């Protein structure tokens, strides 16, 4: 918990959004600028500006243009969208389940989505009329099935659904589904690296195609969640309490879980299972703003995208030229944060 003085200063809406916005912009510029070939910031701005407003520039090397527009920009946008999707989904799951440890990864939803994606890719499935949207749609379907199975199972163990019970159930599901993915990939005879790519996530070599896949789902999913911020606030006091306050709990819960699944499914479809983003980011956003979902969700989007852009930057530069899966970086940061939150909670339970 931050000291009240810090919280008070940051309780200024404009300050919170400015900090988050600046963080995102810096991340984008760093993400595009740094690499085997460095691109200076003014040139990045020129190239993107020219592309956006349609005027031509001649004083920029074509190589820079190609690197920025064809390689780094799509990669940065993709990691940004994935980060934003996972972060807002995590924030929604946490509010809904009153569980600060919930996120698409710890709940097993990411693994479920992976199974859907791997099935689509390795059996080369294609649903008629939807074309390349088959991949995200199947991932979303599998996320949805997984989250419901996890919650049903957790409720079976214990009606009150304690924080630890849900997480434990999620971890069981996630291990099991991870094993299923490994088995499937191994059986189709592909090499091991690809398995790791799926299990730990990666945003490399995806290009603009994948942005087109995730973008509509990101807009729909976050749109739905942003329309349910009041309900999320109410439900973070418990489902019964929310109902007493006038929330149509059954309907809203379904809507929020669906939106969370859409976001997770689409993110996993394009990048594999990247862990802990949805856990760390809402926690961070709560520290700068507070738990009110009205601002927690937009702030999670901003910080989440910036965070994953930076994580991607580190993953491809730290042992360059070899690229680490991005999930390695997020897990290195996320797992300790998970541990700290768990400790804090236990300490609070003991003192309270």
């Amino acid at each position, binding site marked *: 918990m931050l000291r009240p003085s810090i919280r008070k200063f940051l309780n200024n809406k404009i300050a919170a959004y400015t900090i988050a916005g600046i963080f995102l912009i810096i991340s984008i510029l760093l993400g595009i600028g740094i690499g085997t070939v460095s691109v200076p910031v003014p040139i990045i701005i020129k190239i993107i500006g020219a592309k956006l407003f349609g005027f031509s520039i001649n004083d920029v090397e074509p190589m820079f243009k190609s690197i920025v527009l064809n390689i780094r920009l799509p990669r940065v946008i993709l990691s940004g969208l994935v980060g934003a999707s996972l972060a807002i989904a995590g924030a929604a799951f946490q509010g809904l389940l009153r569980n600060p440890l919930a996120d698409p990864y710890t709940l097993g939803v990411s693994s479920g989505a992976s199974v859907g994606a791997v099935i689509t890719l390795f059996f080369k499935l294609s649903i008629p009329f939807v074309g390349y949207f088959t991949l995200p749609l199947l991932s979303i379907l599998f996320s949805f099935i997984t989250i419901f199975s996890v919650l049903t199972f957790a409720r079976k163990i214990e009606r009150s659904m304690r924080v630890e019970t849900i997480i434990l159930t999620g971890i069981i599901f996630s291990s099991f589904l991870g094993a299923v993915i490994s088995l499937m990939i191994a059986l189709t005879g592909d090499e091991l690296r690809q398995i790791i790519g799926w299990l730990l996530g990666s945003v490399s070599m995806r290009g603009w195609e994948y942005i087109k896949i995730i973008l509509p789902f990101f807009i729909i999913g976050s749109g739905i969640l942003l*329309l349910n911020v009041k309900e999320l606030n109410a439900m973070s006091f418990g489902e019964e309490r929310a109902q007493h306050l006038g929330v*149509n709990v059954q309907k809203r819960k379904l809507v929020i879980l669906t939106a969370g699944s859409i976001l997770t499914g689409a993110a996993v479809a394009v990048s594999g299972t990247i862990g802990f983003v949805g856990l760390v980011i809402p926690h961070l956003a709560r520290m700068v703003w*507070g*738990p009110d979902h009205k601002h927690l969700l937009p702030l999670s989007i901003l910080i989440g995208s910036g965070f994953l852009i930076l994580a991607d930057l580190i993953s491809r530069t730290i042992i360059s030229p070899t690229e680490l899966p991005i999930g390695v970086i997020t897990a290195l940061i996320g797992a300790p944060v998970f541990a700290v939150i768990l400790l804090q909670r236990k300490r609070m339970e003991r003192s309270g």
Partner: protein
Amino acid sequence: MLSVQHVSGGYSGEDVVKDISFSVNKGELFGILGPNGSGKTTLLKMLSGILPFGQGEILIGGKRLQTYSPKQLAQKIAVLSQHSTQSFSYTVKETVALGRYAHQKGLFQTWSQEDEAVVQRVMKQIGVSKFQEKNIQELSGGEKQRVFLAQSLAQEPEILLLDEPTNHLDLSYQKELLDLLKQWTIENGLTVISIFHDLNLAGLYCDRLLLLEKGRIKINHVPNEVIREETIRDVYQTKIQKHPHPKVAAPQMVLLPEKQKLENLIQINESLLLQSDEIICLKSPNPLRTMSSGVIGSGTGWHQTFVNRHVCKDYNCSDHREEMASFLLSKGFEPSETVGMMTAVLLADVEYRLFEAGGFSIFVVVTAGVGNAVDASNSDMHGVEMMPGTINTWIFVNGELTEEAFIQSIMTATEAKTKALHDLEVRDEITGTIATGTSTDSILIAATQAGKGLDYAGTVTPLGKLISKAVYHCTTNAVQKSQKRKRS
């Protein structure tokens, strides 16, 4: 306001509440009582719309409960449960503001000026506005409960349902919360329906009580009718005794612990009496049930030490209670365990004796001086100034008395004393008529509350007969001793 008609239902097919019917009027504070598992919480969940019920109807403002949407229902009914879990650190104001959810319209549910006004008003009324920016996780249990009460009231409901609202709260918060609720029912016409575990709290605050037993209504009536010894003993299967509240016309219950059998019954007699020039003192091994008039420990209570103190004739003190208490402390007595009296009579003239009858006994101690003897029938001829001389009568009963017997004992003892003065022809010096007592007499009835049960003490009952005889005998002797000393 709210009407429940033949409602049955429960969880998974098994009916927890069976054929319940009652109605609650606007502005009533309505309590639901019952032992664990009697269906109180289930009933409340049905009223709040959380739990569907099998048969019957619940009507709110004349409309069926099922026809309300969750938002409409939240505008009518608010619920305060016994504890709320918070996983995130919302501020007090954010928490209270959530109560306005049901009143906000449109896709984006904008925060209106009215919403803000209601939230500010409620926070002020409940007394949480001074810490509105604080984090609810930092608050104490009582403060948290107040915040959630403010949240419920921000819904501007017509009916407030509470599930053991005072659970986990300390004494002062319990009272504070219920005082607040009572005030809201009176001032704002709020209807409150609350589950209580504490019968005494329920009896103190509720207008009407509903007692449930195994899912059915045992009784639905005003507190005085519901909180009856037989009913409560029957439903809760425990020993309990009703007694009146000292200040408020409300029934109260006390638990009766299973008595540990005393190895040997104590008998109060002269062996426990200590006598000096300054005090006569009797120390009982066990506390005795007492009814007395005196300087210290008067009224009814339980006391273990009994002190009759000699003071000189011109004793004068502005606060004689305080002075007596410090005197007792200086002698090593605990004032709260002591019944203390004063007399100007020389303690050497005390008269005491044990009287026995079939299965019980009484020990009587009397100090008597008649310098200020008064004829009660002519007492308006007397001024208020105090004169020395007092008859202090102690009656220890080795037996178990009812409240009624205590009062009858006092009557019988007084009559016997008066008769003694009559036979000695003690005269009121001002009127010249035969005196009935003195102006500063005190009496103590103390019973061991063990051994033989003695229900009555009228003059012809066994106890009454013994008291009459004993008091007459001791008073006569004590007055004679004092008169003899005066003459000599």
